[in-house]
C-alpha cells in the first residue's frame, strides 16, 4: 500500500456526515475494535491516510499519518536503535498509530518509561465541526495554548479524528534480560513495591502462577550487577515472554470468561474477587478473568482507589468504563460538546 495523504477525502466524508447528520465510527486496522463500547454508526475507514511524514533520530520524534502501520513505525525506529517508550500492544497485524494513540493503551514498559500520552508531542485532528486543527508540535516543550494533542490520547476518537501525530521516541537499551523469581502473589507485590523505591533500571514486571518475571535493561556489566542486586534466576530463552504478555498471548488469556483490566494503586492487597488474574506494572495493572457483575467489579476497583474496564467480552458492550462521579461526567459531556457538538464522532464509544 502506498503512503498517501487522504486529508481531502476524510474531510469530505466528515462534511457529508455533517450535512446528512449521520454519525461516523472511525476505523483503520480493526485490531482494537473490541475495545470500548459498541458504536452504531457508519464506519469511516481512515487506514488509507498513511505514511511517516518526518523522523529525526537526533531530535527524538517521529510524525506519522494515522493509518501508518504500527509495525512499520517500530521497524523504522529499530533501524536507528530507537523505539516508542510505551511499548504499545498491537493486538493484530494491521494495528495503526492513530488507533494506538486513540485507544491510549501502553504495554509492559509503561511504568518505567512513560505512557502513550506522555510521549504525545503534537497532533492534527479533524473535529466534529469538520475543522482541520493542529495542536502541539514536534518539540519536547510546548505550552502554547491548552494541551489538546495529549487530550486525544485515550479519547477513543470521540473528540476528533487523529489525522497525524508526533510522538517522542527514546533510544533502545543496549541489552535487556529477564530475571524470574518463584514466589507467592503477596511476595511478588512486596518485591515490586520495594524495587520501585530504588534507582534501578527495571523495564517490565509480570506475575502469573507463582512466578514473577522482571526485565532489566542496560549494558552487559549493568545487567550482571543488577542480577546480584535483585537476585532471581535468569530466564535463558526470554525472547517471547514480553511479546506474549503485551499481546495477551499467555495461556491465562485463553479462558473464555470476560477479561477485565483493573488499574489500581500498586500496593493494593489483592481482593478475592480478582483471584483469577495476572499482574503487570509493579502491581498497578491486574488482568482479571471474571463473570462477576460489572457493578460489583467497578465498585471493588473504585473502593481501592482505581478503576476497572471491561476489556474483552463475547457480548456487546455498552458500559465498559468505570462510571464517573456526576460533576466529572458532566464535564466530560461539556468537553465532548466543545469538540463535537452534534455527536458525530464515535457516538457512545466511551461514555454515552
Amino acid at each position, binding site marked *: 500500500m502506498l503512503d498517501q495523504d487522504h486529508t481531502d477525502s476524510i474531510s469530505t466524508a466528515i462534511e457529508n456526515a455533517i450535512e446528512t447528520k449521520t454519525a461516523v465510527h472511525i476505523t483503520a486496522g480493526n485490531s482494537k475494535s473490541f475495545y470500548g463500547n459498541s458504536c452504531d454508526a457508519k464506519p469511516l475507514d481512515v487506514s488509507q491516510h498513511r505514511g511517516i511524514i518526518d523522523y*529525526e*533520530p*537526533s*531530535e*527524538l520524534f517521529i510524525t506519522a499519518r494515522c493509518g501508518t502501520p504500527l509495525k512499520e513505525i517500530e521497524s523504522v525506529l529499530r533501524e536507528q536503535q530507537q523505539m516508542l517508550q510505551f511499548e504499545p500492544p498491537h493486538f493484530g497485524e494491521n494495528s495503526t498509530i492513530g488507533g494506538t494513540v486513540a485507544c*491510549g493503551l*501502553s504495554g509492559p514498559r509503561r511504568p518505567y518509561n512513560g505512557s502513550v*500520552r506522555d510521549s504525545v508531542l503534537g497532533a492534527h485532528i479533524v473535529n466534529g465541526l469538520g*475543522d*482541520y*486543527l*493542529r495542536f502541539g*508540535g514536534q*518539540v*519536547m*516543550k*510546548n*505550552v*502554547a*495554548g*491548552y*494541551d*489538546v494533542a*495529549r*487530550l486525544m*490520547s485515550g*479519547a477513543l476518537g470521540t*473528540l476528533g479524528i487523529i489525522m497525524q501525530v508526533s510522538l517522542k521516541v*527514546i*533510544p533502545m537499551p*543496549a541489552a535487556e534480560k529477564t530475571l524470574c523469581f518463584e514466589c507467592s502473589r503477596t511476595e511478588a507485590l512486596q518485591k515490586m513495591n520495594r524495587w*520501585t*523505591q*530504588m*534507582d534501578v*533500571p527495571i523495564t517490565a514486571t509480570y506475575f502469573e502462577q507463582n512466578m514473577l518475571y522482571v526485565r532489566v535493561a542496560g549494558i552487559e556489566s549493568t545487567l550482571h*550487577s*543488577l542480577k546480584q542486586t535483585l537476585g532471581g534466576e535468569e530466564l535463558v530463552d526470554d525472547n517471547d515472554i514480553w511479546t506474549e504478555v503485551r499481546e495477551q498471548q499467555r495461556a491465562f488469556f485463553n479462558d473464555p470468561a470476560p477479561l477485565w483490566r483493573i*488499574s*489500581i*494503586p*500498586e*500496593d493494593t492487597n489483592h481482593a478475592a474477587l480478582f483471584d483469577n488474574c495476572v499482574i503487570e*506494572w509493579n502491581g*498497578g*495493572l491486574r488482568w482479571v478473568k471474571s463473570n462477576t457483575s460489572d457493578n460489583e467489579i467497578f465498585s471493588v476497583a473504585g473502593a481501592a*482507589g*482505581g*478503576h476497572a474496564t471491561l476489556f474483552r467480552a463475547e457480548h456487546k458492550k455498552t458500559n465498559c*468504563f*468505570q462510571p464517573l462521579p456526576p*460533576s*466529572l461526567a458532566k464535564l*466530560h459531556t461539556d*468537553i465532548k*460538546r*466543545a*469538540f463535537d457538538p452534534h455527536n458525530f464522532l464515535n457516538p457512545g464509544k*466511551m*461514555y454515552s
Partner: protein
Amino acid sequence: MNPSSDIFAIFENCLPSANILATVEKLRPYECDAFTAYKSLPLAVLLPESRQQVINIVKRCQRENIPIVTRGAGTGLSGGAHPITNGILLNLSKLNEIYELNPTLRYARVGPGVRNLAISDAAEEFGLYYAPDPSSQIACTIGGNIAENSGGVHCLKYGLTVHNLLEVTFISAHGEEITIGNHCYDYPGYDLPALMTGSEGMLGIIVEAKVRLLPIPQNKEIILAAFNSVEDAGAAVSSIIASGVIPAGLEMMDNAVIKATENFCHPGYPVDAAAILLCELDGYEQELQWEVEQIEQNCRRHKATSVSKAKNKSEQELFWKGRKSAFPAIGQLAPDYLCMDGTIPRKHLAHVLSQISELSQQYELPVANVFHAGDGNLHPLILYDANQENDLARAEQLGGKILELCVEVGGTITGEHGVGIEKLNQMCVQFERTELDQFERVKTAFDSNRLLNPDKVIPTLQRCAEFGAMHVHKGELPFKDLPRF
C-alpha cells in the same frame, strides 16, 4: 460607600476580613507577577486559608460576575497572574500544607501553595524527590507549576510538570470541587490532568495536587565542554542525543552569558569560548561511566576546545551555580531584560542564533542566549533600559520577532513560561482562527461565564487582526469577514 468597603461587604461571609486586602498600599505588591513590564491593581487581593473559603469566594464571584485571577508565588514570567482591574486576585499561598507523603506509592499530596523545592526537601528522608525544577523552584509554588506546566533543566529525561502530575483537585468556575486523575498508572475518561496542566488558571482553581516522586539518583556526573562556535556546540548536542544517551540535563550558554556569569559568581567557565555545554548525567553505576565516555567522545568529535568532568560534589555545584545564576548575572549588564522562551528543533539552532544576532543589531539591543539544549528550549535575554523612551517597545518587538522565528523553523512561542499576556500576539502567529476557536470552546466547557483569568492566553479575533501577523494557511487570507483599511 467607597469601592474598598464594597469589596469587604461582598466577601465578608467568604473569608475573614483580615484576609481581604483592598487598600492601594496593600495591593501594590501584587501589581504584577515576574513579568514586570506592565502593572495594574486588582479590586482586592483575597487570601483564603481553606478549600471551603475558595469555594465561598468563587460562588460569590459567580453571583456578582467578578473575574478571578489566581496567583501563587508570582514568579511566572509571562503575566499569567497579572491582575485584572475589575477582578480579584486570589492568592493561594496560604494553602501551603504537605498533606501526605507516600513513599511506597511515591507521591506527595500537597496544597497549591507548597513551594516546588519544599516537596523535594520533605521527600528526601525517604530517598525520593520531585523532578521538575524550574529555576525559581526555591520560591515558586506547585499550583503555579501546574498552571504553567513548568519545566526546568531536567526535562529531557524526567519530563515537564505534566509528566509528573498524578491527580488534581480543583474548584470549578461554579464552585464545585472536582478531582481528576489518581495515583494509578491511568484513569477513566478523558486525560483532564493533561488539559488542566498549562491551562494558566483559565479552567479551574487548583486546591490540591498529587505529584510523582522519584528515587534520588545515586550517581551523578557533570561535564563542561567549551567550543569555538555555537554551530560546533549545537552539532555536539545532536550527536550526543543520536548516540543513545539521554542526559539528565544538557545546557548551552553563549559567550555573553559565559562572561556575565563568570564575572558574577566565578564558576570557572572559559570566558573566551563562543559557547559552552553543561551536561549532567545520572544513572546506574557502570552505565554512567559508559555515558560519560560517550559525551566526552562526541564533544571532542565536534571540536570541543576543552572537556572536563567535575571532580567532586563541590565542583559539580560550582558548574551548576554558573548556569543557575545566568539570569541575575545578565541582570547586572542592563537595567532591564526581557526573557524569551521559544522552543526550536535543535537542528536549526545555528540558523536561529545567527538570525537573533542580526535582529539584535537591527533593533540595537543586545541579546544573550541561554539554551536548554537537550530539549530545544531557547531563552534569549533581551537587554534594555525601561527609562529610555521606546526601549521597552523595541525590546518587545524584537522579542516578538524571535518568537515568530521559532514558529517559522517548526518550533513554538513558549516552551515553559506560558502565554499569559506577554505572548498573546504571537498566539495569532502560531495558531489559526479555527484553532483559537477550539481553545475558546474548551474554555467555555469549564467556565461558561469567562470568570477565570479572562483575556489571557487566547487572543481575540480583533487583537489578531490589529496585530496584523495572522497565520496564513495554504495561501488563504484569514479573517475574511473583517473589514480591511
